[in-house]
């Protein structure tokens, strides 16, 4: 155990058990998995991507490249989880990844022997011979070696959800800058949301031995938190990372609601995705420390200096008992002080600078540590169990200093990510030797270390000022200034990117195993732009996105090319700032709830009557009704068709779009959107209409009925209802705003049922009783009327899709189910039945009516044999473009019927049509079968097809070629109307 006897922000009264690679350990509430591992003296945590090098813990934050584990087991196994941000809980199970058979003995680390071959970009130059080997040998090998953790491969058992929050001021990060920004804005009266990725508020205040207002930093943070928590207009989102900046002041954030629990409690999601809409934002995300590249700088036990302080001060866990500190910053020296204060030994502090201020060195004067200036660490000596010694070069001589840990401080990188998501670039600051935010997204301010203000007092002030300004932007009066007292710690940095001379690999990007040498190779091979460098070597492409490595790599490239960093620049950052589970972006929209479901009012009724339901857009419709004893769908469908054609059938057509169009210009409007005329349609009559897109192709069809002089009701196909409404609104609001019409969808208000067949009139008459006379004389084909059924208004239409005499009756939806029952009762009494979409489809194909398969957006009216409907006396949407030469060409495929020569043979939609005997090549392809049904009336499978020459080819025998289903049959091209070609039944 390296747990310190006292101190830290852990709750020693709460012991939490966890396992790592099957071994059981204990930690405390307030620990992260990483701090608990440190406290248990576990150094080796993972293996690297390419060379399988042993790796430990480098950081104490979300920027961690090395300490990635598989968290959880079974369906909850989560790969690549950063041990440094996992909040410890009782029962946590973690395992190392990317090793075989075990972490300590990883045979794949033999890869290192081949490392001279495996340099950046090696695969582009090899694996090409013999050509067939790539697919069978090389690629599978590469793929198996790639990747780090293993996904569970099983459905994620947990729920995710999404939510939106609004505020005046969003504060990102709760370090000193963020806390002050939130407090100041909140005191001014603004609605504030404070997001903190950590489970505890305070940022670096939790990790440093600093004082604010004379109190320890953590205590100060607690007091601000308490004040904020008591303010009604402040919301504190803990365990919530803001991951993206989007347009219009929208920010994406992820709340880990239950990741610190073994499993989410009932009803509680695992994670919640927040859309935060903020008028202003104060970005106070802080900075992360960066390492220095030197030989074997990736050994377990090499840790960033600030992370060492975090483990010591916040978690009371000692990463090293005897440490060397290698620092190019003033800041790094504090690590030595803190280690000593915690009772550890510091063997040496190594600083490349010739001059280091006395004020910084003085506190260590009597510590026994060797204080080496103008010196560099050239190598970390040790193996998979950790650092054993450190090799230091000073003035030409090499020293070996024994140590079990090496703390490295190479300077700080502001977390500029969220400032650049909208496209602006970070700016190189020569003073700070790092990238700082460039121009900011509208509404965003930066405060604290994220903007390069590293001193504590400066951070507090900057946070205060930004919070105040943000609140004022939102119209709140400034609260009286109140900046807490604190000292600015020394912050000087002398940039040092890498140390040459050591024997061994110097890592720049530890997770992706990109070394200084790889950067050199990229340079040599012309991949000198930082974006090329990235793509050629994979620098910065790992799960940490180069948070600790990019600047180092880019600076090395700057040295190689002799160009200033301002010119070299850095790579583009992208959301998410930290990786976000795919499940969180999906929220509850998965499985059955991927999209909403629309239920007809007769849904339950249909199920009770043996219906199988089918998707029709978002709707569910009865596809067929199985009668007792029927086991296959075709039997049921054949019965439904026969029964309807012989007696009567009832079908739910409620899903068709229905639009009430009223007003004095309604007729004119319809004339313009339909190819045929509606202004002349008499009241009480319906007409079939076709609508085109402006490019001349058919968009939709349906019947429109005139219920009154200024009142039409249009029907659309189920699939296109929404699209047609939008289309009509477009022409009304944008193109012809002068027309005086009013349109509203009434699809939902009316349930509608088709009653078809020779005995349909009897059924309808029975329903209306004395309320209406529906005899042929008073209610002929295409008649329509509004009729009261007692207190209930209904609409009755004499329309037919089946070719039989048929009616459609519309009734307010809440009576739908009840009416269906009555209709079916009346129908059954006359030998009828209910039928579904399948039988509906059979009857429409038998009649040669076009539907979705033919209205596929690639057909014009002439193709469908409906050219004559187009009025030549008026303009309409699509008229001009439909006249383009290729759309009136005589060789366009047009609608015909197809029927197998051998009536027992199965025809299938999607088969292509070729001349008999023609070779099966594309040149001989003359069309394709659009719709196919089994017609009990004809006694075989029949279909509609679009065939070149169309009508002229009727009578010829051709071939329906369907190689993807091994189909190849002879068919006769026939008239598309298979049943009652003269249409006598309609008028019956």
């Amino acid at each position, binding site marked *: 155990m390296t747990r310190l006897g006292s101190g830290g922000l852990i709750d020693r009264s709460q012991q939490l058990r966890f396992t790592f690679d099957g071994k059981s350990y204990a930690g405390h509430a307030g620990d992260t998995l990483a701090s608990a591992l440190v406290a248990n003296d576990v150094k080796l945590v993972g293996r690297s991507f390419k060379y399988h090098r042993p790796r430990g813990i480098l950081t104490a934050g979300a920027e961690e490249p090395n300490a990635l584990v598989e968290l959880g087991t079974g369906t909850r196994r989560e790969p690549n989880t950063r041990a440094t941000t996992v909040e410890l809980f009782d029962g946590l199970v973690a395992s190392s990844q990317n090793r075989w058979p075990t972490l300590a003995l990883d045979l794949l680390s033999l890869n290192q022997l081949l490392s001279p071959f495996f340099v950046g970009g090696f695969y582009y130059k090899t694996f090409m011979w013999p050509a067939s080997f790539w697919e069978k040998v090389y690629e599978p090998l590469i793929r198996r070696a790639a990747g780090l953790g293993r996904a569970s491969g099983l459905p994620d058992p947990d*729920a995710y*959800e*999404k*939510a*939106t929050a*609004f505020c005046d001021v969003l504060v990102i990060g709760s370090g000193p800058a963020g806390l002050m920004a939130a407090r100041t804005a909140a005191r001014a009266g603004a*609605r504030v949301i404070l997001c903190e990725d950590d489970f505890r508020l305070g940022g670096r205040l939790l990790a440093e031995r600093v004082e604010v207002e004379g109190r320890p930093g953590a205590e100060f943070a607690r007091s601000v938190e308490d004040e904020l928590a008591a303010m009604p207009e402040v919301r504190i989102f803990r365990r919530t990372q803001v991951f993206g900046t989007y347009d219009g002041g929208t920010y994406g954030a992820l709340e880990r609601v239950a990741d610190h629990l073994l499993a989410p409690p*009932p*009803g*509680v*999601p695992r994670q919640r995705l927040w*859309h935060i*809409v903020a008028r202003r934002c104060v970005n106070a995300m802080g900075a992360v420390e960066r390492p220095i590249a030197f030989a074997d700088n990736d050994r377990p036990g090499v840790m960033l200096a600030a992370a060492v302080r975090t483990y010591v001060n916040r978690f009371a866990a000692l990463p090293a008992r005897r440490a060397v500190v290698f620092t190019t910053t003033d800041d790094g020296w504090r690590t030595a002080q803190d280690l000593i204060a915690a009772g550890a030994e510091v063997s040496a502090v190594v600083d490349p600078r010739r001059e280091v201020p006395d004020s910084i060195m003085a506190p260590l004067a009597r510590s026994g540590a060797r204080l080496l200036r103008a010196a560099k660490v050239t190598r970390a000596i040790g193996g998979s169990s950790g650092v054993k010694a450190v090799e230091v070069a000073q003035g030409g001589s090499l020293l070996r200093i024994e140590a079990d840990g090496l703390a490295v401080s190479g300077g700080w990188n502001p977390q500029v990510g969220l400032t650049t998501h909208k496209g602006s670039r970070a700016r190189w600051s020569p003073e700070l030797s790092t990238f700082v935010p460039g121009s900011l997204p509208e509404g965003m301010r930066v405060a604290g270390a994220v903007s390069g203000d590293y001193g504590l007092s400066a951070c507090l002030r900057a946070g205060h000022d930004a919070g105040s300004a943000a609140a004022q932007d939102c119209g709140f009066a400034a609260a009286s200034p109140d900046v807490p007292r604190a000292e600015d710690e020394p912050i000087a940095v002398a940039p040092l990117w890498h140390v040459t001379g050591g024997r061994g690999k110097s890592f720049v990007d530890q997770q992706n195993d990109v070394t200084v040498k790889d950067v050199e190779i990229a340079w040599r091979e012309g991949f000198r732009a930082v974006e090329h460098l990235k793509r050629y070597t994979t620098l910065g492409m790992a799960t940490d996105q180069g948070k600790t490595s990019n600047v180092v790599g880019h600076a090395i490239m700057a040295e190689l090319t002799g160009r200033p960093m301002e010119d070299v620049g850095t790579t583009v950052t992208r959301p998410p700032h930290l990786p976000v589970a795919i499940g969180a972006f999906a929220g*509850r*929209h998965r499985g059955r*709830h991927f*999209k*909403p*479901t*629309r*239920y*007809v*009012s007769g849904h*339950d009724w249909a199920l009770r009557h043996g219906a199988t339901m089918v998707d029709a857009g978002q709707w569910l419709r009865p596809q067929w009704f199985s009668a007792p004893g029927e086991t296959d769908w075709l039997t049921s469908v054949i019965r439904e068709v026969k029964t309807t054609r012989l007696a009567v059938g009832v079908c739910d057509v409620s899903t068709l779009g229905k639009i*009430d169009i*009223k*007003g*004095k210009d309604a007729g004119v409007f319809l004339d313009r959107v339909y190819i045929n005329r509606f202004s002349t349609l008499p009241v009480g009559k319906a007409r079939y209409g076709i609508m085109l897109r402006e490019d001349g192709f058919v968009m939709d069809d349906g019947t429109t009925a005139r219920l009154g002089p200024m009142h039409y009701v249009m029907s659309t196909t189920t699939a296109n209802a929404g699209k047609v409404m939008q289309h009509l609104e477009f022409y009304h609001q944008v193109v012809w705003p002068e027309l*005086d019409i*009013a*349109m*509203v969808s*009434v*699809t*939902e*208000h*009316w*349930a509608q049922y088709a009653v078809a067949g020779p005995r349909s009139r*009897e059924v309808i*008459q*029975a329903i209306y*009783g*004395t309320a209406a*006379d529906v*005899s042929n004389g008073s209610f002929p084909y295409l008649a329509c009327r509004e009729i009261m*059924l*007692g*207190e*209930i*208004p209904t609409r009755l239409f004499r329309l037919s899709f089946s070719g039989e005499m048929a009616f459609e009756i519309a*009734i*307010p*939806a*809440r*009576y*739908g*189910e*009840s*009416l269906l029952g*009555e209709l079916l009762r009346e129908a059954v009494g006359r030998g009828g039945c209910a039928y579904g979409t399948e039988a509906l489809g059979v009857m429409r194909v038998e009649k040669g009516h076009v539907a979705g398969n033919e209205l596929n957006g690639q057909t014009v009216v002439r193709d469908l044999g409906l050219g004559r409907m187009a009025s030549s006396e008026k303009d309409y949407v699509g008229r001009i473009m439909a006249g383009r030469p290729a759309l009136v060409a005589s060789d366009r495929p047009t609608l015909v019927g197809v029927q197998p020569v051998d009536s027992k043979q199965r025809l299938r939609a999607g088969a292509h049509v070729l001349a008999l005997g023609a070779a099966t090549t594309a040149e001989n392809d003359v069309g394709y079968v659009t719709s196919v049904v089994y017609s009990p009336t004809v006694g075989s499978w029949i279909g509609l097809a679009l065939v070149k020459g169309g009508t002229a080819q009727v009578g010829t025998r051709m071939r329906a070629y369907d190689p993807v289903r091994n189909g190849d049959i002879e068919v006769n091209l026939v008239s598309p109307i298979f049943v009652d070609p003269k249409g006598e039944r309609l008028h019956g």
Partner: protein
Amino acid sequence: MVERGPLVLRPASAIPELCGSVELSRAWVLACERHPQLATVIAYKGRRADVAARLKDRYALSLPDGPRRATRGASALIGLGPRSWLFQRETGPALEPELSEVLGDAAAVTNQSDGYVVFRLTGPRVRDVLAKGISIDLHDRVFVPGCSVGTTCAHIGVILWRLEDANDVSVFELAVFRSLARSLWHFIEESAAEFGLAVTPAC
């Protein structure tokens, strides 16, 4: 003509399983299903003022000129768009014929009573539930009683409005297309599960 007795048709609930009630204790969110009479009113060209005058005259309701809900007694007018409104009335004679008569040729009146189901939601955590589906700022001072919006809730089109508080707790109503009521209800159930949900026949 066939002679027969009068046909009796019965209305059905969009979500029959909601008809029962559930224990109220510890529930942070209460919900119920309602079926007011509804009709859309769309003003014809240049007739907005007429519509406003006639509705004022007859119902003492002023026409909202934005996404708001005006109420008077059992009647309410909800702004849906620049020239369309939803007239809502809990009880009374058939709404559409009456309104058509009142508005005459100034507006198109269309019955929508069966087109929507209305859910009433209330309880101390009602905003937290709604925030999971609706991206509208429902802050107490922003979305005050009388505000309304047409928007989406978890991919489902809804009209949402806020009623006067009851017992110091906010009350919202959500109108949804009848066919989508079950999907919306599913959202409410799942989203409120965290807090506790009770269904009441009337709340």
